């Protein structure tokens, strides 16, 4: 009983947070709060919050639309307006949603942007996306920050200075102008301290997959866990409370030796532990997940849950270096790591969480993720001799999710893992 109640509590907290945000967005006009559209990778939540603005994440809206089975009609709408079939489906879904009245996931109309803030330029599509939005919202102020790529696998002091300079000279003055609020560094520092705290908790949460059975699924459930930290609640007490609560619940599962919760109840037997690279498919999220849990496969780590921040290696927001720390955060997002860094990170996950296999879900229209995916897979296979699997689907276009193909590939993959397990077991005996 106690456990049931606990499970509900973190979910209730999350629901309240999300509903609250969309409520605030619905009332933005009345309350006079400014609205800032931005993207999850390299998001400057803390700065947005410092200026009392409300964030809107178009890609989160797109995935929410897909989960509510609305993306197909939005994409069709965008294609009717000459967006090509090959364009990132997040973009088309968002553009289509806007064209159909911009009604958000809670049924409330999402307000127009006062600011279009592009704080991560590693995804070229983001640039084009905001160019499109700028045409639709001519009154919005565009703020663009150039984020240097970690080509040499490190963030140099010059890179940080370059970004801080952009914050000081471009971002902050423009935010001040739009909001009429003076930049308050002390306020930012307080927010950053809470960010750090939430980041500590979420790191602990994703580290619980070390246990066998893993108490959580770090991909399919993981995408829910990263929700609050990715949609603007980083730097709030609410987020800290949510993660604390969630951690407590997970600890209880660990204590009881329970596996992860799936939409069909608790996973009974953990047969395979996997690390997954790439975003999930959102249009058939449940079916996709089901293929895994039906086979007893649990995801012990995923790159996708790191898109909003990579905390595994110890990096945290630092209130003592506010703008420097925001710069590092932008440059440290998963898709801004170079390919060898990603390989190292994923290899560490495979080793630390004792994964049996590594699966790539390749999204054709997502260049940020897809570039280098095959090479990474080969390198990981060679380095760790871990069985690898490769499937293809899409983010939010239901036309590109072939259930039977994916099921066939995954079934073969799981049988392959099974065989290897048996051989290894028999060699040990």
């Amino acid at each position: 009983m106690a456990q049931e109640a606990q499970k509900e509590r973190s979910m209730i907290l999350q629901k309240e947070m999300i509903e609250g945000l969309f409520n605030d967005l619905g009332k933005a006009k009345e309350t006079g709060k400014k609205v800032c559209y931005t993207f999850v990778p390299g998001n400057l939540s803390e700065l947005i919050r410092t200026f009392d603005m409300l964030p809107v994440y178009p890609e989160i809206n797109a995935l929410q639309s897909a989960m509510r089975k609305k993306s197909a009609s939005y994409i069709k709408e965008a294609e009717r307006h000459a967006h090509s079939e090959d364009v990132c489906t997040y973009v088309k879904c968002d553009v289509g949603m806007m064209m159909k009245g911009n009604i958000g996931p809670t049924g409330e109309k999402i307000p127009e942007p006062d600011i279009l803030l592009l704080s991560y330029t590693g995804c070229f599509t983001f640039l084009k996306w905001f160019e499109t939005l700028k045409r639709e919202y001519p009154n919005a102020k565009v703020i663009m920050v150039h984020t240097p790529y970690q080509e040499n696998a490190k963030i140099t002091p010059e890179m940080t200075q370059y970004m801080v300079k952009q914050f000081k000279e471009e971002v902050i003055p423009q935010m001040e102008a739009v909001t009429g609020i003076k930049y308050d560094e002390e306020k930012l520092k307080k927010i950053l301290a809470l960010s750090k705290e939430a980041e500590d908790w979420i790191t602990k949460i994703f580290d619980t997959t070390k246990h066998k059975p893993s108490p959580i699924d770090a991909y399919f459930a993981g995408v829910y866990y990263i929700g609050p930290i990715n949609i603007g609640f980083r730097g709030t007490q609410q987020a800290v409370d949510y993660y604390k609560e969630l951690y407590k619940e997970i600890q209880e599962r660990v204590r009881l030796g329970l596996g992860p919760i799936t939409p069909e109840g608790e996973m009974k037997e953990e047969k395979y532990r996997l690390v997954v690279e790439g975003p999930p498919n959102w249009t058939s999220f449940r079916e996709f997940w089901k293929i895994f849990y039906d086979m007893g496969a649990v995801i012990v780590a995923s790159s996708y849950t790191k898109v909003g921040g990579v905390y595994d290696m110890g990096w945290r927001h630092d209130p003592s270096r506010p703008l420097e720390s925001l710069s590092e955060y932008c440059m440290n997002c998963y898709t801004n790591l170079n390919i060898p860094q990603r390989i190292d990170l994923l290899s560490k996950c495979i080793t630390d969480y004792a994964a049996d296999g590594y699966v790539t879900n390749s999204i054709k229209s997502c260049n940020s993720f897809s570039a280098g995916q095959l090479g990474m897979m080969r390198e990981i296979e060679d380095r760790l001799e871990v069985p690898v699997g490769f499937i293809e689907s899409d983010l939010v276009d239901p036309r590109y999710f072939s259930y039977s193909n994916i099921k066939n590939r995954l079934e073969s993959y799981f049988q392959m893992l099974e065989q290897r397990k048996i051989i290894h077991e028999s060699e040990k005996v």
Partner: protein
Amino acid sequence: MKKYYLGIDLGSTTSKAVIINENDQIVGRGITNTRANYKVAADIAREEAIYDARFTLLSNKIKLDMEAKPEFKKYMEDIRSVFQYQQFKRRMESLEKMLNKTVSEFAYENKTAIAEKLHEIIENIRPQIRNEFVHGNLGSKNQFFRDIVSEKYNVGVDALGREYYEPLMLAFDKSITPVENEMVQYNFKELVLESMAVLEEKYKGLADQHEDGSKEDWYYAELNAVKSNYKDVEISLREHIEAIASEDIHIAKMVGTGYGRALLPFPEDCIKSEILCHAFGAHAIFPNTRTVLDIGGQDTKAIQVDSHGLVTSFHMNDRCAAGCGRYLGYIADEFGLSLNELGPEAMSSTKETTICSTCTVFAGAEVKELLHNGEQRPNILAGLHKAIVQRAMSLIARSGGVRNEFTFTGGVARNQAVLKYVKQMVTDSYGQVTMNIHTDSIFMGALGGAMFARRNISADLPKAGKSVEA
């Protein structure tokens, strides 16, 4: 009692069955075209494999004679063809009945005339087909009932006036499917005895064959030997036929695989992925195999295996099947050729016409355009074959490239032109590697399945999870 193990590979184009003995040796193979009723396709393939297994047992009994005497070897070859004909004949009778029934239900005014024409066509093709089985080499062509009969039937219909075209084609389309989906069991002994009678008649009627230099020497030697000595073979076969026909080919365990595997009426633990089965089968025949390419009807798979024959990684075509067997089927239809004619014609090309389309349907339009522009058909076909192999090469590259040795499996491996380009492109990209292609390529998936059945892996070996707790 001897134990046998069955593997069934239900592919998108053909269904294959392989029976192995306790030493992993193949004793029987069966193949048929996949049809609307998967169960029938699987059952027919299995029955064929069982007949084949009986022939293997029979051949084993007279092994010494077969090695020493050319008449035994020739007779056993011939009897298999005639045996196929006997099965064909029964199905043909069933088709004839169905055709007559279909026509009798027609609303056409000239129904009687149509029925007469139908009768003419059947009377015409019956002896033709018999002759090709008994005296020709139809039995060794791997053609299925539907293909053989429709080819001849179409010729018959074409020769008639336009007024009969539509009703007769309609009659065929309506009749062939139920006949194909009907499971008929034959009595092995009865069919063998009937076949022996047909052979007796054949050999009796044979004039002495004189060497005219058109065939190899052994051909005349075998034929003349069998003509003079077929009675000896008959006596020898009659000695064993009873025992062989009544031998219980006990299938101890079976495994189903292939694209239609989920629809097989097998328990869940008897269903295995075709990727694992193809790899396991290929590895069994060529133990040094490290890379397997399988081109089937609608899947192309590039598979990497370890020294145990276990899959380490694989890559399959997604979203599009333009590089698979079906592509060839579509092209064959476009050209009005049979699938078996494609490869040889492509081999006679003087160059490969570049085919740009990566889509099967577009390739059809492109082919028409090329023909219109005066491109030679063999050259276009060569280009199409090359295009398929290029797609396969890209999958191989994605799966990790070719590691020594390389084995090519699947139905498409029977196509000489595909084989030529695979050899060429693998060598170009990966240098000299050992390349294996086996006459049983198409059966590799079924063989792998049978081998899994024999190993019964999940039950024989300790359960996974043991060391996790330790």
